Structure formats: C-alpha cells, structure tokens
C-alpha cells in the first residue's frame, strides 16, 4: 500500500519502522529537515519536508496515489486538516491522532463529517489498556479476542509457584485447566513452546483461555486475581484523567497526586469522585503520607520515564500494590523488561499497534480471510493475530495434528458459534471460525500463511 505519514515524532517513527518492514511504500512528511533526514536514513522510506496540511506538500508526497494517510503531528488541528485535504484531493483513507479531550467528546461527529477512517487518541488508548490490566491484576498484559470472550494474558511466574518445574502438558493433565500457553519469554529469548516444555521461575508466560478458565487457572496456581479496589495515580495528565474516569466507573477509589495547582483544580472539577492531592508525587514523604503501603494499585503516569521507573521501584519496596508504569521512550525495552516493573504501558507503541492492525486489516479486506485483531506481545517480538475464516481453504477441515504449520506458529484458540475451543490435536478449523494465531514470525496477513512452505 502507498501510505503517507505526516509527523515524524515518536509515533511516526514507530509506524515507519513497522510498516516499512511489512513492505509498504511509505512517504513521511515533517516540517523539520533534520527529522526527515534522520528518519529516511533509518528506514527504507521517502522523506518530504514541508507542512503536511499544505496542498502542495501533500501533492509532492503523492497523495493522489496514496491508499492511506496517517496524521500524527503534535497538533490535533493540523492532523484533522491534513486528513481533510488528503480526503478531498486523494480520496484515500485517513487516520488522525486527536488527543484533546474536548475533541475526544465530539469524535463521532468529527469522524463522520471529515470522513476519517479512524481516530486514535494515545492517552485514551493507554488508559483503556491500564484499566483492563487493573481488572485482572495478576497479569502484566491482557489482550482480548473474539469480541472479548477470549483473553490472552501475560504474567511472570513467581519463584515459589507450583507450576515451576512442570512441563506444559501438566496444566491440562495434572492441574486440569483448559488454557493453552502460547509464548514463553525467558531472558531475551521468545519461545513458542510445545507440551514437553518445562517452566522455570521468572518465565514470562502468555496463555489464552476464556474468562472463566483463566480465572480458574490463576486460582489453581494460587495467584490472587481480584480486581483492585483502590488505586494511586501519580501525575495528572490526560492519561490519568481518562484512566480515572474508567476506574471510577468500575468502582475503584482513586487518588491522584499532581504537582500543578491549576491542573488539580481542573481535575477536581472534571472528576468529583476522585481524591486529588496537590503535591509532588516524587516526594517520599507525600507518598508515605498518602498511604502507598496500603494501595491495591500504583500507577506512575508522570511525563518522565525515569521518574516513573523510580516511583514503581519505590512502590514495589513499600507495598504489595499492582504496578503500572508509563514508558514513553521504549528504545531500551529489553532493559526495562528485565527490571521486573510489573506492567508497562507505552502510549506510542499502543498507537502504532492500533494503526498497524488497521493497515493489515485494510490490506486483507480483499482476501478471503480477515484480521479481526492484532496484538504485539513480548516487546514487539511476537504477535497474536485473530483471523476470521470466511471461506473454505487449505487450512480448513483437517485436524490440527496433520497440518504442517511453520515452526514458530501456534494456534491458540478457536471461537466457534460463540463458544471458545482451546484447540488440541484432533480439532480442526472450519468456515466461520475466528482463530487466534500466536507467532514470532511477523507479518502474517492471511490464515493460510501459517502453513509451512513445501
């Protein structure tokens, strides 16, 4: 596909990285010459310097032949204008990043009137993700499939857990839990395991199952799963606002610590149910006074990654709270993963992930199979993709044990007529199924791609 990305910030960079690797023709537009030069030396893309909302610049970037235009500059207005012009001139699909909460309330109207294919709000998306994690605090990450019926959960195996030293087949055999482990991350390595794989302490395990069986699984291996009852948020930015809104709706008691007096007043006005504390959240005394020891969840959402990491460490030492850390710059992801920080959330990565999912979906809409959902898991080293099988093909109608799939591909779950099947060797795929495929081989576009060549 011919794709234009306006804005080479963090999100633009992540998009360029992922989409250029997937073989799309990318043109990036930014007003700063250095930004454009840097990014076009890093990835195989074409750079255009200029204002992306200008008709001439967009023409130079080839908007006439573009299939998709993604506007991710820091200004909502510029993004919307870019999309409007691209839509009028090039008749392509458009995606805009809009982060101002005021526009966010009117998003339906904007989408309709400006003909946007997708509007993405990184802060809102991040808040959504955090809320989902807090619902099941045992997990580091939760992704949902099959309209929320199936879940992919990631958690770190504690040292004294009963599962340590057991091969995976014991989960169904010995522990009698109907879940399937898809990915194990051990150190730097990503493993797509089989039944004989033996678990070790500190492994990061991703598994699928329906809501009931995942809850049962956690209970069996004695990991606490209750939803959090109260949460402490440090930093009162947009993410904190969206998050507090959702958590209050879930019935969680919220405490927001924010430095800026004016912002505190605003938050108090917007969120009357939340307790807003005007203080420096990085002050040890403040945290202790506000009861960090007794909170169920601690969420570090300040604007500085280093501060967030420090805060989470502090919270880990002083409480048993579920930790969520916002990381903006994910360049050193592998180091951050080693830190045992609990869950990390990166708005930039989430945004890129949502857009990539859309792009894959667009690309495949002509094919017989559709991508319903796509999640990057384990620091972008593996993917979980949900395919909807529209037609019979070479993957349907044969038992899974007879299917020769690629070695790094695993079928994690099947959703058929509203029921969730955790697939075993004798199960087969049928027309109308939604299938979850977990793979470390990026860029599956079609369910048939899972078959090994020759």
């Amino acid at each position: 596909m011919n794709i234009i990305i306006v804005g080479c910030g963090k999100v633009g960079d992540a998009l360029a990285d992922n989409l250029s690797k997937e073989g799309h023709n990318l043109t990036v537009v930014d007003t700063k010459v250095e930004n454009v030069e840097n990014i076009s030396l890093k990835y195989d893309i074409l750079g255009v310097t200029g204002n992306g909302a200008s008709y001439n610049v967009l023409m130079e970037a080839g908007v006439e032949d573009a299939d998709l235009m993604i506007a991710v500059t820091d200004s909502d207005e510029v993004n919307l204008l870019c999309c409007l012009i691209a839509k009028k001139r090039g008749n392509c699909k458009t995606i805009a990043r809009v982060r101002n909460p005021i526009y966010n309330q009117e998003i339906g109207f904007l989408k309709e009137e400006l003909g946007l294919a997708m509007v993405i709000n990184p802060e809102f998306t991040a808040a959504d993700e955090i809320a989902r994690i807090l619902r099941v605090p045992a997990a580091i990450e939760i992704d949902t499939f099959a309209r929320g019926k199936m879940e992919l959960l990631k958690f770190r195996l504690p040292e004294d857990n009963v599962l340590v030293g057991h091969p995976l087949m014991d989960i169904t055999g010995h522990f009698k839990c109907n879940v399937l482990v898809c990915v194990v991350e051990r150190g730097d390595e990503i493993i797509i395991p089989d039944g004989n794989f033996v678990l070790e302490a500190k492994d990061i395990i991703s598994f699928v199952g329906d809501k009931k069986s995942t809850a049962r699984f956690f209970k069996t291996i004695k990991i606490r799963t209750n939803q959090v009852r109260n949460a402490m948020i440090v930093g009162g930015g947009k993410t904190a606002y969206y998050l507090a809104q959702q958590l209050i709706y879930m019935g969680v008691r919220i405490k927001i610590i924010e430095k800026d007096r004016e912002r505190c007043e605003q938050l108090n006005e917007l969120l009357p149910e939340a307790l807003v504390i005007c203080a420096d959240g990085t002050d040890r005394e403040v945290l202790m006074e506000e009861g960090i020891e007794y909170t169920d969840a601690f969420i570090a959402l300040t604007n500085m990654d280093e501060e967030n990491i420090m805060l989470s460490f502090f919270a880990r030492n002083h409480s048993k709270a579920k930790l969520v850390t916002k990381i903006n710059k994910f360049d050193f992801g592998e180091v951050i993963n080693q830190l045992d920080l609990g869950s990390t959330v990166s708005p930039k990565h989430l945004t890129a992930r949502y857009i990539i999912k859309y792009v894959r979906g667009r690309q495949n809409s002509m094919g017989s199979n559709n991508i319903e959902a796509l999640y990057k898991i384990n620091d972008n080293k593996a993917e979980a993709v949900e395919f909807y099988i529209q037609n019979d093909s070479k993957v349907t109608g044969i038992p899974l044990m007879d299917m020769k799939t690629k070695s790094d591909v695993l079928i994690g779950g099947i959703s058929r007529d509203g029921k969730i099947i955790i697939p075993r060797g004798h199960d087969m795929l049928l027309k109308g199924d939604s299938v979850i495929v977990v793979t470390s081989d990026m860029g599956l576009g079609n369910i048939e791609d899972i078959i090994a060549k020759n």
Partner: protein
Amino acid sequence: MNVAAIIYILGYVLTIEAAFMLLPCITAIIYGEKQGIAFLIVMLITLAVGTLFRRKKPKKTGYYAREGFLIVALSWIAMSAFGCLPFVINGDIPNFIDALFETVSGFTTTGASILSAVEPLAKCSLMWRSFTHWIGGMGVIVFLLAIIPLAGGQNIQLMRAESPGPSVGKLVPKIKETAMLLYKIYMVLTFVEMGLLIACRMPVFDSIAIAFGTAGTGGFGVRNSSCGEYTPLQQNVITVFLVLFGINFNMYYFIIAKKFKQAFNMEEVKVYLLIIICSVFIIGMNIMSHFPSGYEAFRTAAFQVGSIISTTGFSSADFNAWPWLSRSLLVAIMIVGACAGSTAGGIKVSRLIILLKGIKKEVYKIFHPRSVQCITLEGRPISEVVERTAFVFFGAYIMILLISFVVVAFNGYSSTTSLTAVIACISNIGPGLDLVGPMGNYGFFSVLTKSVLIFDMLAGRLEVFPMLLLIMPAAWRHSGDKGRRKGKIKDEFN
C-alpha cells in the same frame, strides 16, 4: 564495525561482476577468439571468490555511514582488481599496473588509456573495456540494490556513497524500486542510442561499444581515432546522447511520472544546457578558421563540448591543435562536469550553483553582517550541512588535484601535460592536453604516477569521501573511541 556485512556485500559485488563477464565471453564466441578463454577463467575465479565471501550471512545486518562508504570504496577496488585480470592473462595488456589503470579507467568512466592503439586488441577485450564504462556509469552497488533483497533501511548509506551529487534522494519510497527505476531509464536510453547508431549504419560492434561508452560517460573507443572516422550523422547522434546522459536522471523520472512542469523546470539542467550553449558558441567562433564551413566548426565544437562536459572524453578532432582559448575553455568545463544524479563526473553543476550562491551569500554578509540568507536549489532551501559539504568537497577536490599534480610533475613533462592529466583523471574525462591529448595516451607515465592517477580516478568517481575514508586509520578501528582512549593512556604515561 560490521566486518561481516562488508564481506558479505563484497561477495555479492564480485558475483555480479562475474555475471557481467559473460558479455566478453559471448563476444569471444561470436568472433571465435581464443583470448576469450582468459575471461572465462577470470569469471570462474571471481565467481568462486564471490561465493566464498557470500557464504556466511552476517548476523547483524545493520550498518551505518562508515560501513556504507567503506563497502563502496572496497567494492570498486575489488572489482577493478578482478576486472583487469583478463587483460593480463590474454596478453592484451601484459603489465599488471597498466591493466589495472585501464580497468579503473573503465569502471570510473574515465576513459584514459595507456594504449597507443586499440585496434590490435581482441574484440572481446574491447567489448569488456567498453562494458566496464556501462557498469561503472550507474554503479554496481545501485545495481546490487535493484536486484537483491538487502534488509534494512540503512541501504540508503550505500546509495549515498556511490551516487554522485550533493544530496542523494530517492525517486520513490523504496530504495529497491528507486534503483530499479534508475537502471530501467539507463538501459532504455542505452538501447535507444544503440538502435539509432545501427540505423545510421554504424557497424553493430561499434554501435554497442560506443553506446556503452556514451551511457556511462566513459570514453573508450574501439578505433584508434576514437570517434574521428564516424560519419557526421553518427557523430551528431552521439553528441545528442552525450548531452542526454549528462542530465540529472530525476528529469527522466519526472517525464515518466508525467510531471512535466517539474521536469522542464530544473534549475540544474537549465544551467547545464546554458553552459553547453555558451561554450559551443565561443569555441565554434574560435575554431572557425580550422574548418571548411561554419556548420562543420560548430558541429565539431558541439561534439567536443558535449563529450567533455559530460566527462566522456570521445574526440572527433584533435582539440589539442585548437587555439588556446578553446583548449582552456575545455579544461574549465572538465572541472565543472555535468549534472548530479547523472552518470558523469566532475564537481557537478548543482555543486557549482551551491558554491556560487554560497560565495554570494558570504560577500553579502560583509555588507550586512546580520543578514540571514538561505541558499536555494531547485526552488527549495538546502540545509546547512549540504552547503558545508559542497564547500568541503570542493576543497578536498582541489587538494587532491594539487598534490597529484606535484607528484605527476616529478616525471618532468610540461605543466600542461601534468595538470590536465590529473584533471582529466579526477574528473573522469580521459583525454587532457599536450602529451595526454586526444591523440596521446597515459602509457609513458611512471608506475607511481599511474598509481596516483588510479586513486584520482576512483576519488573522482566516488566523490572523494569514500576514498578519503579508506586511507583514514580511524575507519579501520573497531570504534573511534577506543583509539582515542589508548592515545590518552599513552599521554598519561609520558
């Protein structure tokens, strides 16, 4: 430094060179020449070495500007080293340094020859000589990028190092497609010229060789008189293509993409054509008395100007015998060269424009010290880096020219001979004036001089920086830091 990646890509370059050697082999079969066996042997050797280098795929695929520049410089040296072997083996040019000079001259599209007569050479050797021009014109790395899937976006570093011009850009988002597009334009233009020359009743062998020479803006002929004995019509066809191959290939892309407004509004191309018209006019008037008619004088002037400004170096007349005004003007346009993004050498018209505008800017600054001015090229402002690099490039160019001039002067020939020999080599022209004029050759120089000129030719074709990087010790250290730290420790001891 990513040594594994450098070796891997070198392996590909050699494999491709082996494939290119099929052409002289085929020529030898057609003409039934036993000298062709040399090409077959060298082809197999090159293929073997290339395959050996290619055996291990590097684990780390990423590389940066340093590796990019090194890969390109080393590729060109390796290609020349293997490319000259057939001449040595089949006895056409028995001396290794001579053969290397001839091959480097071919790949860098210089066209400077150590041979006093080319007609005694085997047809297959002549074909290889001309074909090296065609390979070197657009560049073998660009060819590599067009056909093999090298992972990662850093490949732009390779293209930047090999393609001429102050700032190298892509035509389309993907580097592979850009490279493919460039080669398509290159091939189509070459075949059109070949066809036209054959239609003008030039012998087929000559047409192919001359088309290769023109396309790469090389200048090796297959006749002793270069292009002197071809008919006026054939010469005119060559003249047109000489000028065409000196034009920035972006223009052809714009024409293909139907962006005519952009295509015919390129500042660089306009200046380039203006220089040609002025030069032809002045030289034509100047040499009027040497020719029977005014038409003939201007026709010859046009051929020569086209040949020199595109840095090809074909000759249809002995311009060494022309008045000094014409000769000096030719030397001046030798240094200028043609457009960036073409197959030509020299400092390039776009750099000339940047230099002139930069000088004007600095002079203005004396009047208005606080004035802020931005230099524009093709109607858009260029970054400070591009401007600075253009000046540094020009400085380095002149430095290399001066040093080489002094070294060559040790031979004791006239300063015209020494200076124009160096200019003709570094600007990738071929013939200079006096002893190295269109009727002369480079055979009489000492081995040292030939080696210096070989360096000059490569430096000229690769635009100085890759070759300078090659002779910098820092480029070979594992990382720039380490050496510095070592030096520090030593200082402390002292």
